[in-house]
């Protein structure tokens, strides 16, 4: 981390970090059993990324 600039991470890395952290929190809050939590976290992460990349491509024609 550069104190002048802060963390330097790309759009994709930001989205990945966000998706991973929120999926973990949702998984732990909404499920009790460890296996159910893992399944929920993976499914939630997959949907976060799918929808994020999907919206990104949907906006691509209007980006220039």
């Amino acid at each position, binding site marked *: 981390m550069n104190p*002048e600039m802060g*963390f330097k991470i790309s*759009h994709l890395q930001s989205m990945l970090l*966000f998706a991973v*952290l929120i999926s973990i929190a949702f998984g*732990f*809050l909404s499920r009790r059993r460890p296996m159910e939590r893992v399944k929920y976290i993976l499914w939630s992460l997959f949907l976060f990324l799918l929808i994020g990349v999907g919206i990104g491509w949907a906006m691509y024609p209007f980006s220039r």
Partner: protein
Amino acid sequence: MADETAAPAAPPQDSRSEAMAFVIGVAGWLVPGLGHALLKMWGRATACFLTVGLLVILGAGMRGNVFTSTGNDAFDSLGYLADLGTGTFYLLARSLETKGADVSHARGDYGTRFLATAGVLNLLAALHAYEAARGRKA
């Protein structure tokens, strides 16, 4: 004449457990994960503490906007409310961001979202702890 449609007064035990649930909810808001820790839900407590903490550290590190009470418009006020949701971690975000916000770059904008999400997530976790303390299925 007594109002027969009124609900009967809650027994003292219920009102005490309701007060305890409220305290647990407030504790969960002030320190992310503390509400669940008081209920001995260690996994959830750890997950809340780490995810909210990491979002705050990353958000402040990316020079996101940590809103203050002196906002100019409704969006600033809403951002302030969301940031306040992190409880004491709001002060951590303020102390980490010594250089101030920089939303002229995308990462600063992402940082602002990270901070707001941390607050809303912590409010959700505190509400979850409150409901669990009241005996709702959690």
